[in-house]
């Protein structure tokens, strides 16, 4: 894992001091809320329904046990004993006091953490593949590149007042576990003629106008990448729309001028920017890469004993193959049946930290599906890990099943929401609580957003649910056919919306149609793509 040097630490410490001063000025009345708002947002502080909400960055979703324990500590000391892991691989605290905020950031800084640029119209936390460094199918570990981007984008003087927020994802595998093409910029690291570089996709996103990012450059060399991104951002900063916040994302600019014209403008800007010498030498990427060296694997290649049937189910569902023989990737579900997707108590966070320290070379990951990963678990330790997880109520064996629901906080917490998301997730998970039934349905990614901003990624759900406000009453629209993976697609609305119970019934009917029509080992998504909407619509509305 990356470790701060004195420069990195000084940056974060200075930020704490700066924000402390800004908070003091706000409380003293030297700043209006309108002036303070962009400053607090760039420190991850929102004003939500019940209190301030603090979003802490977990860069590319990677953290160690010390950092994880700090997250538990913050939950206990400053919040109500829990945290919410988000679809952007971050954690949110829902009950923060403005007057505590500088102290919280100061505590976070002691473990090389911060809340920098977790909101605001700037370059946000860089997201990545939660299996980075452990996945058998990766070309390289994307995290050093993500760290390079983190540093470049931190306090970027030109790009801190962009037309709108800006999200970058980096992957390096053919399987896309990070919804890469649904980001403002998606980078896929590839090898060409022996050299590593990035395929650059620009202009994806969800929100009210979902778009899949087109490829803007098939290969940008490592030592050109920051100049190229600087050019991408400069064109956006200059020409992105600022007249309408709903049309201000880069996807709209690219949609309006066309990918070819955007590509041409970026190429022209790049030709200029490249002369400025802003790209660090490859030695900097190598310096960062050294921190991500493979751990000292030493476990024998033994298969775990499958005698315990519950353990066997968990193995099959939540444990994924590792690139190192003798090791496995463990997914910890934060989706207990009837629970709140992504929430974990401070005690659970501590348990996960302990397990990482003891069994996963001190590392954890946060996934965009709001789960946690132990990336380096020896197969001989899997049973012990599972037992400890079970004791902490963290052993739900539902990864990628219908109850592994992504849900935004919705109207229970969020001031932007139009409808509640969590109760819908709870009802659906409860309806499909039976493990055999879930497993029979197989991979089925169900995602719920409580408003059109799509934090719950409903556009990318095999089944998506969007909560809307219909004359003061919560109403839920269903979409089918979305995917955030390498087979990326945007779901389509199937018809009129439902009330809360109605949408649960409709989902159940859809799964019955799927079961009746599926061929071979088709997933729900595959069957839907093959047969189209008609039979589903017939069953649901007919």
């Amino acid at each position, binding site marked *: 894992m990356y470790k701060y040097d004195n420069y990195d630490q000084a*940056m974060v410490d200075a930020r704490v001091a700066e924000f402390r001063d800004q908070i003091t000025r706000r409380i003293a009345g030297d700043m209006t809320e309108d002036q303070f708002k*962009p400053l607090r947002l760039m420190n991850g502080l929102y004003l939500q329904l019940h209190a301030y909400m603090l979003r802490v960055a977990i860069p590319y979703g990677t953290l160690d046990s010390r950092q994880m324990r700090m997250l538990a500590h913050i939950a206990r000391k400053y919040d109500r004993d829990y945290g919410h892991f988000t679809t952007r691989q971050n954690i949110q605290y829902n009950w923060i006091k403005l007057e505590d905020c500088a102290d919280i950031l100061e505590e976070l800084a002691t473990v090389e953490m911060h809340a920098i640029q977790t909101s605001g119209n700037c370059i946000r936390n860089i997201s990545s593949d939660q299996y980075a460094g452990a996945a058998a199918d990766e070309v390289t570990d994307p995290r050093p590149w993500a760290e390079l981007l983190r540093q470049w984008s931190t306090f970027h003087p030109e*790009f801190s007042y962009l037309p709108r927020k800006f999200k970058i994802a980096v992957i390096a595998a053919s399987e896309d576990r990070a919804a890469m093409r649904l980001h403002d910029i998606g980078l896929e690291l590839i090898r060409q003629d022996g050299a590593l570089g990035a395929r650059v996709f620009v202009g994806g996103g969800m929100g009210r106008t979902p778009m899949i990012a087109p490829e803007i450059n098939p290969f940008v060399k490592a030592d050109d990448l920051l100049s190229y991104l600087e050019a991408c951002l400069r064109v956006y900063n200059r020409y992105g729309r600022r007249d309408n916040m709903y049309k201000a994302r880069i996807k709209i600019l690219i949609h309006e001028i066309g990918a070819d014209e955007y590509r041409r403008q970026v190429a022209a800007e790049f030709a200029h920017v490249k002369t400025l*010498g802003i790209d660090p030498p490859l030695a900097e990427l190598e310096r960062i890469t050294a921190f991500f060296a493979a751990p000292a694997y030493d476990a024998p290649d033994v298969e775990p004993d499958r005698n315990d049937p519950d353990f066997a189910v968990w193995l099959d569902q939540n444990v994924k193959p590792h690139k190192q023989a003798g090791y496995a990737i463990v997914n910890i579900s934060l989706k207990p049946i009837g629970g709140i997707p992504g929430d974990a108590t401070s005690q659970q966070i501590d348990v996960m930290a302990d397990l990482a320290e003891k069994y996963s070379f001190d590392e954890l990951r946060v996934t965009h599906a709001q789960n946690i990963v132990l990336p380096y678990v020896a197969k001989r330790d899997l049973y012990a890990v599972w037992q400890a997880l079970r004791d902490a109520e963290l052993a739900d064996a539902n990864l990628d099943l219908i109850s592994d629901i992504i849900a935004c906080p919705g109207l229970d917490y969020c001031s932007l929401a139009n409808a509640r998301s969590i109760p819908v997730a709870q009802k659906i998970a409860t309806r499909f609580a039976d493990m055999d039934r879930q497993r029979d349905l197989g991979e089925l990614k169900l995602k719920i957003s409580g408003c059109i901003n799509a934090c719950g990624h409903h556009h990318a759900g095999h089944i998506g649910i969007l909560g809307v406000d219909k004359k003061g009453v919560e109403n839920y629209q269903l979409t089918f056919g979305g995917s955030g993976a390498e087979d990326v697609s945007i779901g389509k609305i199937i018809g009129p919306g439902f009330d809360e119970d109605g949408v649960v019934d409709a989902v159940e009917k859809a799964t019955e149609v799927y079961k009746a029509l599926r061929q071979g080992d088709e997933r729900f998504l595959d069957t839907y793509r093959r047969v189209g909407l008609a039979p589903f619509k017939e069953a649901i509305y007919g």
Partner: protein
Amino acid sequence: MVEFRYRADEVTEQPSVTLDAFLDQSNATAVRLEPDDDARALIPFLDRLTLIEVAFPKYRDGRGYSAARILREAGYQGELRAQGDVLVDQIAFMRRCGFDSFAPESSLNPDAVARALDNYDHAYQGAADSVVPIWKLRHG
């Protein structure tokens, strides 16, 4: 009114003209850019301009940061002034983008400005100022 100026030379007294006016009657030495003006239109004339004023009608509109860098990258040496809705907490970034004078609509507290400019010893990325980026410090 210019409240903060980080240059040794004399203040230009000539009022600035709009970009369109400048391109029409090009004997002016001071020009004012609105957010949607293309700063690159000035590049052929930079050596005879002594003041470029970049308007920030709303602090949230960050186009002026790119305009400033483009002008400095093209070699502009004259005064580069941020005018309008310029707030304490924007000034450090503006300095990094090449602005060297500030005419905020609402007067700013000089101590707060000094603190804001002094807060960070280093920066991660190169920009239009003389700050050496951290990667360069690391690799000598």
